[in-house]
């Protein structure tokens, strides 16, 4: 299975995949309730609201209250889906999530758009790069970061069908669609192998999976055999898949649109440290805030471009 066969069919934003997914989930399950803090358009909730107006809660610009209301809705058997930008749905309301959702083990789905640098021009106030770390540290919390429009739609439906507090992270920019519209291999907590290889394992999540596909194609052209893993579920982490791959390739590069501290890379490094020592390099944001710019400019400036993945692959292979 080579990366050369992976091409994109179209480009769409992952948040639109969420919008379609929650509408389908709402149609299938009368207990699904959507909440939003004054960002209906950004979260693509229009169709859900049009078809299920009684199951939509507009909280206004009050995210703490939204999280509490979501927790309360579960008590009557509802499946609340609390939506806003990732910065306001995680960091701003961390204590509310910790106590009323995670510790109380409520079946709340926190679904957030505009995560990471790729929200672009709004700049660092909105570009949260710490949310994966914040959420994965909470007991009971599942953390899912799908890679494209199709997968975000499937992930939305999957987390709603699965019981337990969950954070779903997606984004703003139009992005290549390269996974199938229906995908039986997509399961929460199960890594997806996009290619089989023997020289290096690349483990990526979210928008960075496409970056890794592009990097992998160039690496393959140079004769490097790449095993690319789409780690859409950060928690629970598919440790078996990581170990199975690294035992074959002997080294790993991780790629994520997040701070290195607390991100996917550190979770993978922890698996290696505990079970199978091997060199690892991380493509991630290096302890800094973002800034205004286009998504591509920002990914380039902050070291998240395909060329950065290639550089780290070459480095990690030398360390074997």
């Amino acid at each position, binding site marked *: 299975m080579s990366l050369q066969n992976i091409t994109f069919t179209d480009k769409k934003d992952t948040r639109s995949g969420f919008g379609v997914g929650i509408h389908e989930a709402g149609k299938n399950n009368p207990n699904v*309730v959507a909440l939003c803090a004054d960002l209906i358009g950004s979260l693509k909730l229009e169709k859900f609201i049009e078809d299920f107006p*009684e*199951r939509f*809660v507009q*909280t*206004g610009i*009050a995210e*703490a*209250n*939204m*999280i*509490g*209301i*979501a*927790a*309360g*809705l*579960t*008590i*009557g*058997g*509802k499946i*609340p889906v609390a939506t806003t930008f990732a910065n306001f749905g995680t960091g701003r309301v961390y*204590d*509310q999530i*910790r*106590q*009323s959702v995670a*510790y*109380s*083990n*409520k079946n709340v789905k926190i679904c957030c758009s505009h995560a990471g640098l790729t929200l672009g021009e709004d700049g660092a106030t909105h570009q949260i790069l710490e949310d994966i770390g914040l959420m994965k540290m909470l007991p009971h919390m599942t953390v899912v970061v799908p890679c494209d429009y199709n997968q975000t739609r499937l992930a939305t439906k999957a987390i709603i069908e699965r019981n337990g507090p969950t954070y779903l992270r997606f984004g703003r920019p139009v992005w290549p669609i390269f996974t199938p519209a229906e995908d039986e291999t997509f399961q929460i907590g199960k890594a997806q192998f996009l290619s089989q290889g023997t020289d290096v394992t690349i483990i990526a999540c979210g928008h960075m999976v496409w970056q890794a596909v592009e990097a992998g194609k160039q690496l393959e052209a140079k004769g490097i055999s790449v095993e690319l893993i789409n780690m859409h579920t950060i928690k629970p982490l598919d440790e078996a898949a990581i170990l199975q791959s690294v035992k074959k390739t002997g080294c790993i590069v991780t790629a994520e649109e997040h701070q290195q501290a607390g991100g996917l890379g550190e979770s993978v490094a922890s698996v290696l440290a505990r079970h199978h020592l091997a060199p690892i390099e991380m493509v991630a944001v290096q302890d800094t805030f973002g800034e205004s710019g286009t998504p591509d400019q920002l990914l380039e400036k902050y070291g998240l471009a395909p060329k950065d993945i290639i550089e780290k692959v070459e480095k990690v292979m030398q360390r074997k």
Partner: protein
Amino acid sequence: MQVAELNQVASQIRRDIVRMVHQCKSGHPGGSLGCADLFTALYFEIMEINTDFKMDGIGEDLFFLSNGHISPVFYSTLARRGFFDVKELGTFRHLNSRLQGHPTTHENLPGVRIASGSLGQGISVAIGAALAKKLNGDDKTVYCLTGDGELQEGQIWEALLFAAAKKVDNLIVTVDWNDAQIDGSTQQVCDLGDLKAKFTAFGFDVLEMKGNVMEEVLFTLTEAKLRTKKGKPVAILMRTQMGFGVDYMMGTHKWHGSAPNDEQLAKALAQLKETLGDY
């Protein structure tokens, strides 16, 4: 239950509170004692509840404690009402107990539907539960208790704004207005100002009551229930005395979060009649 019987229950709950806090040398007796009459009235007379606990509470009135630190009065009330064995009160704040310092669903204690302790979150949760009742066509009422110092938390005002704007009229929020918090009186710490005017301006139907007079508590809670389903959330500003029932704990904020020693316990118990048998 008649007022005399309810007062007997409240007296036993007050004994439980001081004994629980004494045995683990920690906890919050002051607010717990002040709210014993409200809890007694709610759980032994006003609320329609099922002691065979189900988390979803469909078809039942629900109660949420936002100021979770007064867990002793909550636990004693639940045990005395039959949610679990009163003997378990002796495990309060001990290792491996279901009776955590602050209430939690984590240990599956019957009667608790949300964790609380970090302040300001309970009204939002109660609103969510009230909205779920509306969606479910369930006509029962959701009650929430919050402290007065707790009103300094910003989330409270987000929740109040929402409850009125969205006509969450199956919700009754009671404020334990004892004017005391850890660092002193609420006036000293950060004055709440005219609470009645504030709740009214936010769009609540506001009632006031003396929270340590059982007749008045029953009357006001009954009136509050009658005012639900009329387009506005209902608030009860409940004047209480922190430490009510134990003379040396009243009139000071000192007993917000301190436990009595052996001598102080004996003095407290001498003032609180054992009516239902100590645990």
